[in-house]
């Protein structure tokens, strides 16, 4: 690369603070200024992520999970975007870094895997070149060294005959293989934090399982933190340490994975889980559905964003927005006035069923009284 490397005090050069979380995100907001109004894509999200841990971010399409990961990584356009809040990476505030400064972090500190492996790889560039590009730029490797490293990377992500594959183009590979290449590209410079944005949504179940296994193995080997973004609670269940459930740009429930599944408090989380067809259920089991659609992010409803679709909604929910508050278990937070599994919640649901409230009827068609996840 002829380009001169920008030298700056990158977080790694400035001496790592080994203690303390890897990433701290505090009240970040990303609003898009559009002709029809301000789209509040991410609206006040706070979380911390420790080294080597995995955070699952779950929500429907349009809940802001992709924009959240792009906001943290600084991958958004600068025009007509309003960004607020603090992002600290290894103790350094990176939220006000310029694109030039972010460049020293991308690849070496933070990597990203996108949903569609075909469109995120360059179709007219051999895959070897796509992997060695960052090795040459960031790590100043010479050609031979970079190629050897690339072959080693392809081997480690499970690509057969890497010496041959390195000179092939993306279209010569299957979808699963392309996603493996994408993982090799993002792991090339040894990032400490990997964003995986729906990495398996475009893939078959068998390949999905392989790719998730691969990510997990690489994480252990590299002691890397992962933010796994997905719409499927099944994908994150066995593979994350913590889960944040997002709805309409906000985190509505956050907990260690086991706690989230055993003590879920937010009706939205419960509804997401119940909408997954389960193998244990007999065939033709009626699925619980969430009626309606996610809210308009330009004019979000007053009160709780989920209230128009919520089977538990009470008059208060349409007026006052519930704050994110602590539950009994440590690290468990939720935003709901009538939480699932509490006397108030049960009462609210019973009242709604009695009042023939449509969302409540949709939810109870399958029998909500059954234990969740059974």
């Amino acid at each position, binding site marked *: 690369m002829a380009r001169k490397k920008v030298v700056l005090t990158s977080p790694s050069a400035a001496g790592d603070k080994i203690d303390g979380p890897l990433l701290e995100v505090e009240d970040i907001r990303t609003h898009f200024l559009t002709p029809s109004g301000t789209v509040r894509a991410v609206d006040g999200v706070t979380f911390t992520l420790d080294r080597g841990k995995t955070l699952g971010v779950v929500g*429907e*399409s349009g809940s802001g999970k992709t924009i959240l990961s792009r906001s943290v990584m600084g991958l958004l356009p600068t025009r007509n975007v309003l960004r607020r809040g603090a992002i600290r990476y290894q103790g350094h505030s990176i939220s006000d870094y310029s694109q030039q400064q972010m460049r020293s972090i991308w690849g070496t500190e933070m990597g990203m895997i996108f949903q569609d492996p075909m469109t995120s790889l360059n179709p007219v560039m051999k895959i070897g070149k796509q992997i060695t590009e960052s090795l040459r730029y960031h790590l100043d490797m010479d050609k031979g060294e970079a190629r050897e490293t690339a072959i080693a990377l392809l081997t480690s992500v499970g690509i*057969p005959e890497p010496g041959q594959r390195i000179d092939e183009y993306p279209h010569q590979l*299957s*979808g*699963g*293989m392309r996603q493996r290449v994408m993982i090799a590209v993002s792991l090339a410079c040894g990032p400490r934090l990997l964003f995986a944005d729906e990495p398996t949504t475009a893939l*078959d*179940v*068998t*390949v*999905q*399982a*392989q790719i*998730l*296994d691969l990510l*997990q*193995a690489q994480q252990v080997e590299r002691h890397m933190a992962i933010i796994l973004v997905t*719409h*499927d*609670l*099944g*994908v994150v*269940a*066995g*593979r994350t340490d913590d889960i944040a459930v997002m709805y309409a740009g906000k985190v509505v429930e956050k907990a260690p*994975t*086991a706690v*989230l*599944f055993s003590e879920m408090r937010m009706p939205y989380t419960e*509804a*997401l*889980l119940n*909408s*997954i*067809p*389960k*193998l244990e*259920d*007999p*065939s*033709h*089991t*009626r*699925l*619980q*559905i*969430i009626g309606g*659609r996610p809210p308009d992010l330009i004019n979000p409803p007053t009160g709780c964003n989920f209230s128009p679709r919520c089977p538990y909604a009470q008059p208060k929910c349409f007026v006052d927005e519930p704050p994110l508050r602590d539950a009994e278990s440590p690290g468990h937070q939720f935003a709901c006035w009538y939480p699932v599994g509490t006397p108030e919640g049960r009462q609210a649901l019973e009242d709604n069923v009695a009042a023939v409230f449509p969302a409540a009827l949709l939810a109870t068609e399958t029998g909500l009284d059954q234990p969740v*996840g059974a």
Partner: protein
Amino acid sequence: MAGSGTAHLRGDALLTVEHLLVEFPVGRTGLKVNAVTDLSLDIADGETVGLVGESGCGKSTTGRAIMQFPKPTGGTVVFDGTDLTTLNGEELRRTRPAMQMIFQDPISSLNPRRTIGDIVSEPLNIWKRGTPAERAARVDEVLDAVGLDPAVAKAKRPHEFSGGQCQRIAIARALVLEPKVIICDEPVSALDVSVQAQILNLLEDMKERYQLTMVFIAHDLAVVKNVSDRVAVMYLGKMCEVASPDSLYAAPAHPYTRALLTSIPVPDPTRRPDPEGRLQGEIPSPVMPPSGCRFRTRCPLAQERCAQEEPQMRRVADDHYVACHFPLVDAAAEPAAATV
């Protein structure tokens, strides 16, 4: 996996596919893609048959070959007593209203420049069903049935709807001619889990309301299990296992079915995913499929016999058929396995 045979056919079905063969030439090389090879399947009246397998196993090709779209290279597709493969263009066209299809990508399967009213009424106009007023009433009825407000939806265009709503429109278009059979080709693969649940419930409702017979193609066994009365597992253009969904899940007899089942993410954090026993590698090229059993290259139980001899479909339990030399069933419950 890669089995042939017709032991699983029942005889009195609405739609019977026998020895279906679909091949595509590979350029001018003289080679061919063996997309579907000697596949047999039958679908009883009012039944939903789920067709499952990985990408590239030929499940979509099978769905399209049933529709004669394109015509298969060989085999028969008998629908309601008529062999569709023998029909010419106009005769085939006359069977179309009875068989309709729903595609994977709901947005690209609708013409972006036409209104929903046009899209849904077009089949009626082509077949000149009833008076214009009757047609309009029929369009309103199906739009209402799929959960859209006809007054609002009819004047809009596809881009004004979400993916899930577009899939509802595609379902309405398929239903408007009152078909007997609907072939759903991965109708929920492009949708979120919450929307997927809505569409699956809708398909169940529509099936009941219009007495439909369905072929449901998908790669997710959990989804297929939810809607199907019978599940057929495919691998590389061949049939592996046919069974009722509950027995298929409770006791998968084919190693491939078991591998598919273990790949499904379970929404339960106490059950950690187990990479052991995971299906490794990818589906081989259908241009030069493996000899004998086509699954043998990835099968944990493969023996020499699997390379030489192609397994035939055989019965292992009530309404449970498998094409495997070494099926995963107890020796006691397996009368045919010891012989040969």
